[in-house]
């Protein structure tokens, strides 16, 4: 009885594509920035994604996990990730040097609804590592500046040295087509010339907005959501135009392994971008 069969699966959703690390640099003491490119140049250039989507990144021997894409689809070729050192896999990622090979598959999930957001004011509020997914949508808006009305950015960090992309954001303040406000919770070094206080103290600086034509985007540490959403509600931004991106454990990215299940949805295929209305009617979201 020979029941062994030869199987060749052309389309294996779990198969990572090889990619090379192009550059790495520290953003803060425990957050590093990675630029990677698929070794197959055709794949690198044809890789289409939406701001807010994520990819599964793997390092041989250490494992695989979801990471949001920090680069913008408006700048094809390179994929960028902001990664904080947290465990076994991220330890291995931190040890990567230029030209090292990693595995990437994706893009996965539902990103920000860029098409629907066109023509509206975009208010982006980010804190801490929340920059990672929101940088993608910010760059996308700036690269397609004509498609959007006002773009407002509020960015908070604990201290100036904890601010991810600090120099880049300080540079962005010079742009006239972007209202960029930065804040740190405290500054013992005394080098900080911008606002001091939690990110919500920046809200009064925003010139009056038209809430029915505004999208509010938020990502940051868990404690931040409630306070920022309260501010959005005070500004009368509709609940289904308040967008946030969430984190869950994932082992597949394609709705099979079950780890990211919340109620009847899977964060990986129905998210990771959700509206505040989703959050209200699916209690476990935040």
């Amino acid at each position, binding site marked *: 009885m020979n029941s062994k*069969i030869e199987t060749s699966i052309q389309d294996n959703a779990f198969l990572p594509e090889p990619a090379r690390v192009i550059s790495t640099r520290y953003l803060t003491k425990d957050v590093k920035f990675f630029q990677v490119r698929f070794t197959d140049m055709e794949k690198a250039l044809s890789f289409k994604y939406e701001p807010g989507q994520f990819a599964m990144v793997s390092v041989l021997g250490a494992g695989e996990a979801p990471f949001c894409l920090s680069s913008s689809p408006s700048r094809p070729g390179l994929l960028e990730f902001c990664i904080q050192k947290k*465990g076994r896999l991220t330890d291995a990622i931190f040890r990567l040097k230029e030209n090292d090979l990693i595995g990437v598959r994706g893009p996965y999930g539902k990103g920000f609804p860029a098409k629907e957001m066109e023509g509206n004011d975009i208010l982006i509020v980010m804190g801490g590592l929340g920059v990672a997914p929101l940088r993608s949508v910010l760059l996308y808006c700036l690269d397609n500046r004509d498609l959007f009305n006002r773009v407002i950015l509020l960015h908070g960090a604990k201290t100036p040295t904890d601010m991810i992309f600090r120099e880049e954001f300080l540079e962005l303040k010079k742009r006239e087509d972007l209202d960029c406000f930065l804040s740190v919770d405290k500054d013992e070094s005394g080098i900080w010339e911008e606002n001091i206080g939690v990110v919500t103290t920046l809200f009064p600086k925003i010139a009056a907005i038209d809430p029915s034509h505004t999208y509010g985007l938020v990502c940051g540490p868990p404690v931040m959501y409630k306070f920022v959403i309260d501010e959005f509600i005070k500004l009368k931004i509709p609940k289904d135009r308040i967008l946030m991106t969430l984190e869950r454990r994932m082992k597949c990215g394609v709705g099979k392994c*079950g780890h990211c299940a919340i109620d009847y949805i899977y964060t990986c295929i129905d998210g990771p971008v959700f509206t505040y209305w989703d959050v209200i009617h699916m209690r476990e979201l935040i």
Partner: protein
Amino acid sequence: MKIVKLKKENLYPFLEIISKDADLWAPAKKHEDRHVFKQVEDFEQIDLDYTRTILPPRNFLLPPEIRMFQASKSEYEPDFSHVTKKILFGVHPCDIHGLLIMDKFYTHMFDDPYFLEARKNALILGHSCWPDENCLCKSTNTHIVEEGYDLFFTDLGGNYLVWIGSSRGDDLIRMQPDLFEEDIADQDIQSFIRWREDRDKAFSTEINFTAMPDLMELKYHDPLWEDLGRACLACGSCSNVCPTCNCYNVEDNPVLGKNCSNINRCWDSCTLEYYSGVAGGENFREKRSDRLKLWYTHKLQAYISKYGKPACVGCGRCVVTCPVDINVLTVAKALDGNGIDSFWKRLSIEVSQ
């Protein structure tokens, strides 16, 4: 759909022919009163007089642990060695419904080749069954099955009526057509009708599943869940035996001295402690009650909202498996207002003391 007749004495000759180039898996006795699906070489091992096997058929499509890839720095070599040509004989309607739910799940948005290849290479030969007090399949409407099998055998004493459910099933019959009879006598039809009526009457347990999504919602904060959480051992047995549990974990296991890794996929359960844990130590469902709630929300609420029927096929495996009596039957009853089982109350009090 075509139905043919097979004399009982012709069953083994038929199995003999069709198992020539595939592994035959069938129910067999394990210990005194338990059954398992196992690969059988000797047909005498087959015991069709069974209610439920310990593990559901998904066990031999996706075994507890499979290797997805053998990976080196330069190449990920997919491994489909768990896929073999199989014939699953003696599968009950509830388990066929379980496979149908898995089919839907594993093809939703993305295909899962590790399941689908195994499914494609397995022939499903269903078999009629008789309920015990733990069978809930009449309530879940999975006590009869119209699709998802290649052949289905209904035992009418001296004969089987054999439903041909697929083109592949038809091919099997054609391997030895003279074993089968095309003409089904009136007498056979009458005995089938009687068998159906008797079987329908044999179901003793019933739950109203249609009310579950609303009840789960209304009782989201009910103290019931805390009591259940205190009684639950978080052992994951319910997930291991459930025909529709599909969660898995993936591990990258480096092979010492070889500079390569085995990327393995193994069963997981949402009732286990670190199931919803993320990097940095955050755990979205630290409490056992939250994890149990997810299990039951998924089966009794989410799936009904999405597909119009529960992800429970009423096989009763959780009923006979859970060491502390938390199962679809008791939880549904408690949600339905029949009060919390005194056993849980006592257990919950004892645990908290």
